[in-house]
């Protein structure tokens, strides 16, 4: 197109030139009009060939779920210039266009032009994605060969939450069903407004907490007080494996993605029960520049979790050498927290996992290992349409020798291809007791 138009302009010059030469040679004044026409035409096109100013207002939601169709709206305002504007709103690889297109074209004529472009796209995997620029190419009507490329900053980002629906249920408080050390009750933190029980008055209790009705009903000389839950009654720390063994499967479906959905769901459940929750990752030799969350509870901590979990990416190293931020162990030593280690046990990482568990056990005996079985995920994609009844059992049988290397600890084996997120959230809650 560009070449053709440039050739057309050159052809016009040639035609004008031939007409001019003929006009001069034959002294036919009528022919002078042809050359005048070409000269005026090119002068007009050249005078309009000014670099334009282009502004864009991009609108899209700040947050969406994976695979949810999102509406994008671009209001483009072009002033100055005379030619074609071809523009692209680049989408990250994790996005798929669903309706219309993110590449657009319009012709800017004599007057200012305002165009509104809309399209629909869906983020296919969770993460925080920058959608902060619009690329454009300006092809001036005069000298279209001399195109100009540019970028406009739109300054936006979108959070794509995991596609698995996060169960928004409040689990009833349950004790651990295992004969293991109980969670250490936090000795610090103010009392919350959440009622827990009524008990007999003890020295040091506030008079304001006396339950007069219960006192009247009770036997003589027994003063009853209301017991309230402490803020951050217990502490649970999630330690997520980021090694390559967690990436087995597809980009959208792999143990890491399922683990993130699981942490989203479980941490929310715990935080709503005023349990302090923190988050760290175990990674292979890339320093400690990984997202982490200090243990706390409440809505603000839920937001911190969301932001941190969306930024988690697998490490690129093929070698599994787990490194954990020293702060994790400091916090663990101070709080004696329950550690939920989420990993996918394979031959490659089993020895290192054993070391990691030993290191964690120095500070806390409460460790729960959540083993995300990836074989089922892989098989689901390889053998589409076939029901895998015994996938979990077969995978565990295969992995038995590796799992045996890990020091004895509470373990939940989760096969996301056949077991729901709600199942593992409930199971873990029952194991650690909330």
């Amino acid at each position, binding site marked *: 197109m560009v070449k053709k138009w440039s050739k057309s302009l050159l052809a016009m*010059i040639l035609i004008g030139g031939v007409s001019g030469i003929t006009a001069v040679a*034959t002294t036919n004044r*009528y022919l002078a*009009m*042809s050359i005048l026409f070409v000269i*005026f*035409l090119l002068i*007009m096109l050249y005078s309009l060939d000014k670099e334009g100013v282009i502004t864009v207002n991009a609108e899209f939601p700040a947050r969406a779920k994976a695979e949810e169709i999102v509406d994008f709206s671009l209001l483009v305002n072009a002033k100055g210039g005379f030619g074609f504007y071809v523009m692209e709103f680049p989408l990250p690889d994790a996005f798929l266009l669903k309706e219309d297109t993110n590449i657009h*074209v319009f012709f800017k004529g004599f007057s200012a032009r305002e165009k509104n472009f809309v399209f629909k796209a869906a983020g296919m995997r969770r993460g925080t994605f920058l959608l902060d620029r619009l690329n454009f190419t300006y092809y001036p009507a005069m000298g279209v060969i001399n195109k100009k490329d540019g970028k406009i900053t739109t300054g936006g980002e979108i959070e794509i939450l995991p596609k698995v629906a996060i169960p928004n249920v409040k689990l009833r408080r349950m004790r651990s069903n295992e004969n293991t050390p109980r969670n250490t009750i936090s000795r610090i933190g103010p009392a919350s407004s959440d009622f827990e029980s009524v008990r007999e008055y003890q020295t040091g209790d506030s008079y304001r907490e006396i339950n007069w009705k219960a006192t009247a009903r009770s036997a003589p000389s027994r003063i009853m007080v209301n017991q309230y839950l402490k803020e951050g009654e217990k502490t649970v720390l999630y330690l997520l494996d980021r090694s390559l063994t967690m990436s087995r499967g597809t980009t959208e479906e792999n143990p890491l993605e399922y683990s993130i959905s699981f942490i989203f769901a479980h941490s929310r459940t715990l935080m709503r029960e005023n349990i302090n929750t923190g988050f760290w990752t175990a990674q292979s030799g890339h320093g400690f520049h990984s997202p982490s969350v200090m243990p706390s509870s409440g809505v603000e901590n839920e937001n911190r979790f969301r932001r941190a979990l969306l930024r988690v990416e697998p490490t690129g190293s093929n070698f599994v050498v787990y490194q954990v931020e020293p702060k994790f162990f400091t916090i663990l030593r101070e709080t004696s927290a329950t550690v939920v280690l989420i990993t996918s046990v394979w031959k490659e990482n089993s020895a290192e996992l054993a070391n990691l568990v030993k290191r964690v056990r120095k500070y806390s005996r409460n460790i729960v290992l959540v083993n995300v079985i990836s074989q089922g995920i892989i098989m689901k994609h390889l053998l589409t349409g076939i029901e895998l009844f015994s996938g979990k059992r077969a995978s565990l049988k295969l992995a038995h020798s590796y799992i045996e290397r890990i020091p004895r600890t509470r373990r939940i084996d989760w096969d996301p291809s056949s077991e729901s997120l709600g199942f593992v959230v409930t199971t873990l809650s029952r194991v650690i007791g909330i």
Partner: protein
Amino acid sequence: MNRYSLSIVSFLLLILPGLLLLDSGYALAAIVGIIEIGSAAAVSFLPSDRGKGVGRYFPFLIIASALMVSQGYFQRLFSLAPVVPSVYDNDIAFLLVFMVLGIFLSMTSGTGKSMIREMSYAGFDEMELKSAVSSFNTNMMIIGFSALILAVSGYLLISVLPQVSIGFFPAVITFGIIYLLLFRVIFSEKRKTAR
């Protein structure tokens, strides 16, 4: 303005000399006129946007033949002066500027057409492309007709005011300089892009 409308406008401008020859009353002149109208139809409507085939030379051929006819070269070359009179020579020369505008519009139409084809493959929305090309066509037609009005006005100025009339050598030098400047502008744009 869609490309069909633009092609029709281009065709109407290009057939003016042909219609003049048809109207002359001479059989051979009428045949030349019909050939000219046929060529105009080819330039305006045939899919020459691929830049291949004989079609791409038609604009040059039609202008060259119009120039030849307007100056009587054609008639003298083929010894046809008795059957194709030269009375219309000046009229054809006058209409040449309309033909040049017609060719400019046909090139505009061709560019728009090739743009729609190339960019549709690249994934652009076809309706949006057509709207952009339509806007391009309209703007180019406005510029083309403005240039025509200015050219005719310029000619009239030269005709009415003898003081403006320039001689042979000054005309050659003036056009030469203007053309050198135009080429310089276009090729400097090319160099910028190459960088």
